[in-house]
């Protein structure tokens, strides 16, 4: 099956074509690039990121939110990322265990992804996989990150709306989200709200939000509670996500964020392409020489990158 046939079938909503296309972009290389080029114009959707510490109930919340959207008649795509082993490169992807309630619904497409060595909470190909699912006709896509601590904030750049999930009883540990996580949340959800300490956690989050300067984009993140296992609170969360989506459009932030995202995607694509072209015999020789300190990496890079590279970019 060539890329064009695959894209046609994917655009017709054929789930197997979509699944195969995601595998191809995970592998990367020229085929992946051709595929992405073909679907890119159709890849618009509302991307909702779900992040938070391990065991906070992200997968269960994703399932409950998807069920809420399905009640409203909206098809839902889900990408769930779990870590790869740094030693074997293998992975056990267990997010589907919590998502069994969504099985058998043709309006739901779930894909598990291993992070494959990438830090930051997402896999290299997560954004591309989301674009493919969008092109297959899913207007809302939920992206679940690996269990995240403080610094796994890549999701904020990939998602239009980022949900940070917290749980009560972590007490002063709310402090730990101060620097990274607190800043990226568009919506806070305190999950497992039937546990003691929920009110305190909500209060701490609200206090912390009030301590800071108001966000420059004019959105103040709501702090909501949920019991994901029963679906309680999910209607309010979906409403808040919808409000945030409207806000992004009304305040022209969507355009601004799209520019930032486009810049980042272009940078990544250029890096990938350059590296792919430069790797080879000479590359390997230089690696050897740098390892034995016969060469330094900067001089080696200058040798690999011809000076006329600047001419085509229009900088000369």
């Amino acid at each position, binding site marked *: 099956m060539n890329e064009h046939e695959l894209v046609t079938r994917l655009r017709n909503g054929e789930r*197997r074509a979509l*699944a195969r296309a995601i*595998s191809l972009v995970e592998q990367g290389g020229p085929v992946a690039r051709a595929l992405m080029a073909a679907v890119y114009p159709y890849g618009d959707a509302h991307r909702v990121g779900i992040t938070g510490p391990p065991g906070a109930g992200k997968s269960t919340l994703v399932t409950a939110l998807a069920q809420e959207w399905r009640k409203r008649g909206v098809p839902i795509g889900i990408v769930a990322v779990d870590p790869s082993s740094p030693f074997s490169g293998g992975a*056990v992807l267990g997010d*589907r*265990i919590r998502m069994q309630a969504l099985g058998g619904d043709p309006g739901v*497409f779930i894909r598990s992804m291993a992070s494959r060595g990438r830090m930051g909470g997402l896999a290299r190909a997560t954004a591309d996989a989301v674009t493919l699912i969008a092109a297959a006709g899913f207007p809302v896509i939920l992206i679940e990150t690996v269990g995240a601590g403080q610094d796994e904030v890549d999701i904020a750049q990939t998602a239009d709306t980022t949900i940070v999930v917290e749980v009560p009883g972590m007490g002063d540990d709310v402090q730990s989200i101060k620097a990274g996580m607190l800043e990226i949340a568009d919506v806070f959800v305190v999950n497992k709200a039937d546990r003691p300490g929920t009110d305190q956690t909500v209060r701490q989050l609200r206090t912390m939000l009030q301590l800071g300067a108001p966000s420059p984009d004019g959105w103040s993140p709501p702090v909501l509670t949920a019991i994901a296992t029963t679906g309680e609170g999910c209607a309010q969360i979906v409403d808040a996500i919808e409000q945030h989506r409207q806000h992004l459009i009304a305040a022209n932030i969507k355009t601004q964020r799209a520019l930032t995202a486009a810049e980042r995607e272009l940078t990544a694509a250029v890096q990938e392409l350059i590296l792919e072209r430069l790797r080879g015999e000479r590359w390997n020789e230089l690696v050897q020489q740098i390892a034995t300190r016969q060469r330094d990496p900067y001089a080696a890079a200058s040798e690999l990158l011809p000076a006329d590279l600047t001419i085509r970019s229009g900088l000369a």
Partner: protein
Amino acid sequence: MERKIRVLVAKPGLDGHDRGAKVIARALRDAGMEVIYTGLQQTPQMIVEAALQEDVDVIGLSILSGAHMTLLPKVMQLLREQGMTDVLVVAGGIISDEDAEILKREHGIAEVFGPGSSTQAIIDFIRSHVELTRG
């Protein structure tokens, strides 16, 4: 980039014994494979739909309930209906030699690994067969 072997490990039917499935999931992970573990009480429809969405190379079915002659042929039939005949299907659990023979000969299960099978044998089997189908 080298393509990772993706394996769906699932427990069809109603028995709650998932230690074997977890041991296999862990062993395949340590062999560098990506294992999608779906948990207990999966219907054949859920298994095939998950395998389709995850674009797996291999399905590993662990079954200890005795219902393997009903559930495993059903999984194979649904796979054929979806045109997913290139997916390698292996089974494990309490399955008699006679039943294993029928599952392999008549239903297209590639191999049945009974109690006492070494995880290395399973890993080797998967590796060699996936390489074959990928060509």
